[in-house]
C-alpha cells in the first residue's frame, strides 16, 4: 500500500489545519460566550430600515 505515504501526510495536514483553526478561533474569543450566540442568531435581521413584514422578526 504505497498509497499510504501519500494519504497520511494529507491526513496530518488536514488535522494540523483543523487544530490550527480551533486554536485560532479560541484565541480570537469565539468560544468565550457559548450561550448568547444561539439566541442572537434568532434575531439577526430585525434592524430593517425599510420594514417588510414578511421578513423574520
Amino acid at each position: 500500500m504505497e498509497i499510504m505515504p501519500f494519504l497520511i501526510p494529507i491526513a496530518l495536514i488536514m488535522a494540523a489545519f483543523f487544530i490550527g483553526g480551533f486554536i485560532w478561533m479560541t484565541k480570537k474569543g469565539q468560544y468565550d460566550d457559548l450561550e448568547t450566540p444561539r439566541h442572537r442568531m434568532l434575531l439577526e435581521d430585525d434592524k430593517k430600515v425599510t420594514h417588510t413584514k414578511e421578513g423574520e422578526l
Partner: protein
Amino acid sequence: MSACIHCDQDVVTAYFNEDSTKEGPFCCRGCLTVYNVIHAKGLAEYYEIKKNVSFFKKRAPVEIKSAQYSYLDDEDFLKEYSYLSNNKEQTMEFYLEGIHCLACLWIIEKLPEFVSGVVSSKLNMSRSVVSVVLKNDGKFSRVAYELENLGYRPHPLKMNQDTQNLKTKEERAAMLRIGIAGAASGNIMLYAVSLYAGAGPEYAGFFNLLTVLFAIPVLTYSAFPFYRNSWMAFKNKSLSIDVPISLALIMGGVMGVYNMINGVNENYFDSLSALVFLLLMSRYFLKAIQEMGLGTTDLHFFYQGESVLKVNENNFHMTTEIHPKFIKLNDLLKVAPMQIIPADGVVVSGETYLNNSLLTGESDLQKVLVNDDVFSGTMNMGSDIIIKVKKINKDTRLGQILRSIENGWGHKSKIIDITNVVSKFFVAIVFMLSIALFIWSYKDGNTKHALEQALTLLIVTCPCALAIATPLTFIRTLSKSAQKGIIIKDDAVIEKLARVKNVFIDKTGTITENSLKISSFYILHDSTVAPHDVIHNLEKHSTHPLAVSLKNYIKPLPLKTLPVTDLKEIPGIGVSGIIENHFYEIKNHSIYEDHKIICSFEASDTVRRDAKHAIEKLREHQVHIQILSGDKEEYVQKIANEVGLTSAEYQSGMSPEKKSQVIKSSEQSLMIGDGANDAIALSYADTGIAVFGAMDISLRAADVYLSLPGLSPVAELITISKETMKVIYRNLVLSLFYNSISVVLAFTGYISPLTAAIIMPLSSLSVLISTLIGTKKLRMIWK
C-alpha cells in the same frame, strides 16, 4: 392559576391595567409598570418575540425602585467602573437582574435606538451582563434608569481589566486544553487502531512515532491541571483523585517514550489521551454549571448595595446620589422610607420607626429620634431622616457580621469528599499491588519485564471512570436544580445535605413573609364615612407597613375617593384628616371619628403559603427541626403553632451571635434564613440556605439560594442530595469493579494497550449511563 403576562410567574393577587385596555393579569405592580413602559416606548414587539420563543428560564417578579442612579456619572465612580476608549467613548458593564429569554436580548440590544448617546449595548446571556458603550455626551445614569424601568435592575460591575483578562485567559486555556486533547486523541486513535489491526512492519514504527508526537501536547499542556492539583495535594500532605491520574499519565508517558526508543511499538497513549480529554470535559462542564449559579459576579454586586442620597451640610434640601462605596465618615445621608440604612450613624434630623428584623429578627418597630444611634442593615419604616455617618465599611454592625461570616466559613465542617477518600486507599492499594506484581513477575529474573508489568498495572488501574463519574453526577444535579430555581454554590453542598440531622429555620422573612397582614378587623360603631373609605382616603400616600397592609386588606371592597382636608401623617403615630367635616384618625390599631373609636384591627406577620407543607415534608427526612428567631416569645410561639411545631421546637429572642452558638454546638446542621441576623448562623451551619428575597449579606453567607419564593424546595433539595449520593456510590462500585478486572488481567499477564483501550472507555461509558439513569426518585423530581 393564570400566569403574569410579563414575567410568566403564577399570579396570586392579580393586577390589571387601570386604563381602558384592562390588560393583565400581572403578578405585581412592578410587572404592570414595566409592561406599560415597554408599550410606551413602542417596543411591544417584545411580547411578540416572547410569545413565539417558547423557551425561557423562570424568573422572579419585577419590583421597581425609583432610583435615579445619578451617582453613575460621578468622575471618581467612572474612573473605577468604566473603561474609556481613546476615542472618548465610555464602556460600562452592568449585571442585570431578570434576564431570562430571547426577548430580553432583543430589547436590551435595542438601547441605542431609544437612549440617547448609547453607541452599542451587547448582552452576554450566560453572565447576564450587558456592556454599554456611550458617546462622551451620554449619561450612564440615564441608561441605568431606562434599564430599571424595563424591569432589569442594573448593578454596575467593576471594570478591572487585569482580573477580567486573567479570567478570560484561564477560560480560553481550559477550552484549548480540551480541544487539543480531543483532536490529539482522535488522531492517536487513528494510528493506534491501525497498529492494533496489524499495520505491516513498514508502518508500525512510523505510526508509533506519530502517536508519541500527538501524545506529547496532551500529556504536557492538556494534562497540566492534574499535575498542578496533585502537587497542591502533595504540599498539604493530602491525596486527591488527581494523584493516581497524574501518576498513570507520567508512567504512561515514560513507558511510551521508553518503548519507542527501544523499538517496541506499544504504548497507552490512545487510552491516556482519551482519558485526559474526558476528564477535562467533565470538569469543564461542572465549572460551567457552578458559574451559572451563584457566580462570582453575582456576589460581587450583591454586596455593593443600593445607591444613597448625600445631603449638603448647609442646605438639607440639596442632595446628591452616591454609591455606597463612596460614603465617607461624617457624611450626612438622607434615608427615605422603606430604604435600608447604609452605614452606622446618628440621627441629625427627623424621627421615624426602624425595622430591625433584618439585623436582630425582632418584628416590633423601634422608634428613633434625633441623636439616637442607627445601624446599617436596619430599614426605615416611617418618614425621611437624615443621619451623620459615624462608622463605615467593616467597622459597622453589618461589617462586623461580615467578618464573623468570613471566619464562619473557616469553621464549616470539612466535607468528606468521598472520591478523594477512596483515592487515598486506592493509591495505597495500587502501589502495594504493583510492588507485589513486580516481585511476582520477577520470579523469572527478568527485571525489565517485571518493571513493565508493574508500571502497566499503575496505568491501567488509573481511576478514570471514578474521576469522570463524580463530576458528571454533580453536573446533572446542579443544573437540574438550577432549572428548578435552586441555586447551589458548589457540589460539596450535596454531600453535606445528604447527611443533614438538624434543621434550623429563621422566623421573620423565612417562615413568615416579612410583611404585616390584618388578622382581625372589628367595626365598633357606625360612622359617616365607612372605615374602609377612611383608610382609602387617609392612607393613600402612606408607606408605613401597617398602612400598606390596611390598604391591601380593603382592596377587594368598593372604595369611594373623597376630598380630604388638612391630611397629616405623624411619623410613627399615624394619620389624621378631615373628610366630610368629620375628623378622622388612624393610630394605634384603631380608627377614630371625631376622637371616638369606630373601628379596631390587629396586624400580624403572615406565614408563607407553603411553610406548613414544607415543614411536614422536612419531617419525612427524620430531621430535628427548630425555629431560631430574634423575635419575642409570643410572636414566635404563634407562628410555630401555625406551622405545626411544638414548644420544644423553637427558640426566641436570639441574637445573631446566639444563633450561631446554637448552630456551632449542633452536628450536621442546616440553617435556613434571610436576614443579616441569620448571616453568621448561615455561615457557621454545615449548609446555609438563603430564601428568595434574602438580604445580600446573607446570600454571601449561604451555600444555597432559593431564587423563587417559597420554602418547599428545601425538603426536595435534601431528597435530591440523598439520591445523588446513591448514584455516586453506585458509580464508585462500578469503576472499582473495572479496576479490579484490570488488576486480575495484569497479574495473569493478559493486560496490553489493546485491553486497556477496551476496558477504559467501557468503564467510562457505563458510569456515564448509570449517571444518566440516576434513580427512580431523581427521575420523578427532574420530570
